[in-house]
């Protein structure tokens, strides 16, 4: 094992309009290590990886690959030189087969004289798929795979791409675990551990535990710079938190002390609600109450949430809001009844990335910034500025397209869109903190507490078990489309994780 780092960035700087994403960064990736990269949203992790994989060019500074300076011509070029990445957003095509996806742009000997040799293609792809396990078949159409399986295919694809070069590859994984389940994460880790024998891996995650359990070395990023380098053995989660956000936050992470008892009057009641993926779901959320709905994949919890918002059809059963029966036939109905919804797929369902912060914020309730039927630009500017300040949205201006904000800041805007309405009664949150950094998460948690205190009923589909338990007054578990149990969860009397888990699986 030589001492030269496989890859190295020196004095790397990269700016986008109004933002400096990387400033004078120096990192190195060594052979056969798993390098962790953590930092809050917008800290520059993804940008760093994109620079490493040739997707973006540095403004200044240099990139060294195995000791010599390189300038990648693009991702494909980086692939050829042995660097490959799994993007934060999934990038598999679902209208082609798994094999084609794995070897996309890298068909090599499987295409001879321009003609596909399918058996050869499938065989080669299968080799990589076997590496990641999970009984993936090369010839399957990708549309038939679950989200998690697709993530595995992404990893296989990255390995395949990285192995195009003549050296041991560098594999960059940008938040690969955020959509995976426990067992799948385990699989992924064992893959990576194996991979370490013949490759270097860079791993980005917001879950400190994962990073500590799993990486050989960790860089902590903040505001476009590297603020620390550490070895997992030497640090604790709390120390990492502190380093990331620049202050000690972990104590009040879930803002548990802010939990107020729920009022007695029920706000939202579902009775015997039945849809295609859920059956006989009955639940009540009182004013000021946070109820989390826990369940594994295909438990139906997501569709229950969407049904309340009118986004999926209901076959039978009733929804009652403040004593009045409602039948939300579309999200528009639900919104007019006073329901807000933060979807799990932010970029697809939540945010209009091509519009600016201001327009996104006022999209759902333009009445709040209008005088009569007319939009009032002055009032709009003021209101938006208030919310930007209140939620600490990091944006160069109100007129910045949402596309240019970091994920966490986008999420804050999506949330604020509902908060504009003083008459909001129910807020349905589908994994609202997924992909957010701890600081942003804490902000969102604080916000949820505040909203509950305002008398809102909050239906929370938490990202993690801890989050669900810590944030709620009650925890409901779902399995196979039915509610299986209910736990009360007050300050100091939280249900045990294992008990909750037991009723979910």
């Amino acid at each position, binding site marked *: 094992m030589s001492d030269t780092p496989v890859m190295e960035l020196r004095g790397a700087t990269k700016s986008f309009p109004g933002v400096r994403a990387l400033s004078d960064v120096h990192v190195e990736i060594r052979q056969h290590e798993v390098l962790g990269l953590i930092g809050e949203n917008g800290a520059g992790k993804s940008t760093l990886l994109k620079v490493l994989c040739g997707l973006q060019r540095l403004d200044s500074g240099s990139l060294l690959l195995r000791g010599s300076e390189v300038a990648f011509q693009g991702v494909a070029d980086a692939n050829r030189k042995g660097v490959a990445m799994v993007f934060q957003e999934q*990038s598999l095509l679902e*209208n082609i087969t798994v094999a084609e996806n794995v070897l996309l742009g890298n068909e090599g000997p499987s295409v001879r004289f321009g003609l596909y040799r399918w058996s050869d293609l499938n065989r080669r792809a299968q080799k990589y798929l076997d590496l990641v396990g999970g009984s993936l078949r090369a010839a399957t159409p990708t549309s*038939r795979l679950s989200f998690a399986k697709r993530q595995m295919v992404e990893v296989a694809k990255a390995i395949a791409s990285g192995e195009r070069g003549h050296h041991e590859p560098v594999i960059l994984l940008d938040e690969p675990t955020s959509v995976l389940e426990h067992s799948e994460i385990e699989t992924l880790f064992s893959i990576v551990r194996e991979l370490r024998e013949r490759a270097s891996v860079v791993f980005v995650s917001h*879950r400190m535990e994962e990073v500590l359990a799993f990486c050989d070395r960790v860089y902590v990023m903040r505001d476009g710079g590297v603020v620390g380098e550490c070895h997992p053995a030497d640090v604790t989660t709390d120390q990492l938190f502190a380093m990331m956000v620049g202050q000690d936050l972990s104590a009040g992470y879930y803002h548990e002390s802010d939990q107020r008892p729920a009022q007695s009057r029920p706000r939202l009641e579902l009775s015997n609600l039945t849809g295609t993926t859920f059956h006989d779901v009955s639940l009540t959320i009182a004013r000021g109450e946070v109820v989390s709905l826990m369940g594994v994949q295909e438990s139906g*919890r997501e569709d229950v949430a969407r049904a309340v918002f009118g986004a999926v059809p209901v076959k039978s059963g009733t929804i009652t809001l403040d004593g009045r029966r409602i039948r939300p036939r579309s999200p528009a109905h639900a919104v007019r009844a006073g329901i807000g919804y933060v979807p799990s797929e932010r970029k697809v369902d939540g945010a209009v990335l091509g519009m600016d912060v201001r327009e996104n914020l006022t999209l759902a309730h333009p009445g709040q910034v209008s005088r009569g039927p007319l939009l009032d630009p002055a009032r709009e500017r003021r209101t938006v500025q208030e919310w930007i300040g209140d939620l600490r949205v990091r944006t160069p201006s109100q007129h910045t397209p949402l596309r240019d904000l970091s994920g966490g800041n986008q999420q804050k805007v999506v949330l604020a869109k509902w908060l504009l309405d003083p008459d909001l009664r129910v807020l349905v949150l589908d994994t609202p903190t997924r992909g957010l950094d701890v600081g942003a998460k804490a902000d969102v948690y604080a916000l949820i507490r505040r909203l509950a205190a305002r008398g809102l009923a909050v239906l929370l589909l938490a990202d993690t078990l801890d989050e669900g338990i810590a944030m709620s007054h009650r925890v409901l578990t779902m399995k196979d489309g039915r509610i299986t149990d209910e736990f009360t969860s007050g300050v100091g009397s939280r249900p045990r994780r294992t008990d909750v888990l037991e009723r979910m699986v």
Partner: protein
Amino acid sequence: MKLTLAPADHHDPRATGRTAGKTSRPVRAVLGSNAVPTPALGVLALIAAVMSFVNPSFLSPGNLGAVAEQSAVPAVLAVGLTFVILMGGIDLSLEGTMAAASLTTALLVANDRNTMDLGLWAIAAGCAVGAAIGLVAGATVGLLRVPSFIVTIGTWQIGLGIAQLLFGDTPPRVADESFRALAEHRTAGLPGIVWIALLVVAVGWTLQRYTRFGRYAYVIGGSEETALLSGVPVRAYRAAAFVLAGATAGLASAMATARSGVGDVGVGTGLLFTTIAGVVIGGTLLTGGRGGVLHSLVGVVVMVAIANAMVLAGVSSYIQQTVQGAVVVIAASLTLWRARQRLRVIK
């Protein structure tokens, strides 16, 4: 380590692909997959069923031959167009391209205007003219990043202009008997142009299944960004698709010219409607990424069969357009019915 909860396996409602494991029997699996244009075949069967009551001669071998012959030209057009649409573009220029290619072909075979006599090579020349017009469109779309929708309105006009320049005073009449024979001589009961069309469909299907061009058409139509990230030279492939569409329009034009016997600026009139409607009814999505050559073939046959059936049924000329329009709407609804879903976005 924390335990994480993944979201329910989220099958995107917009995806037209069907969930796995629901179909056990192989026949149903095939019909249910996107590999076969099942709904369009259903529409075809419906037309046949209705016509067997209204006018049974619809199903006579002679009439089926007529439908095949009339489908030949739009089918060839559809093969090229399919690849453009698979990549998420559109080619509206084919009537203009056909005009230019028709004149070129007619002036290069033995004709009554000049002394050229390239024989069947003139077909290649027609294809080349079409390909050249396609290249203009493809290069413009690629280099200037202008939507193909509007670029091909431009190249349509350019093709028409070329044709008008070549037209002179009278339509050049084809004197080359071997060229005319493509449309007139029958092999196994069908004229040559039908066999050519079948060959083109077979080649198109092979392209779609077994070549980089074909597979990457799906990739580019699925997500241009992903294609770029994977180092796919998207512009080149896209330009190639327009060239192919131009070349097939040239070939289709040569076939139509062989059939009519003159170089005609109006050779493609009405074929844009037939072809695009056919491609869409077949199940190729205008947004790209789904469908294929066989789908388009079936869709085009549906369109031709409707026109044929209306003549056989004696539908008044006055309302034929109305009926055809209504059938397009209904057939497309039937084709896409099973994909309907709340909050599905269709543009």
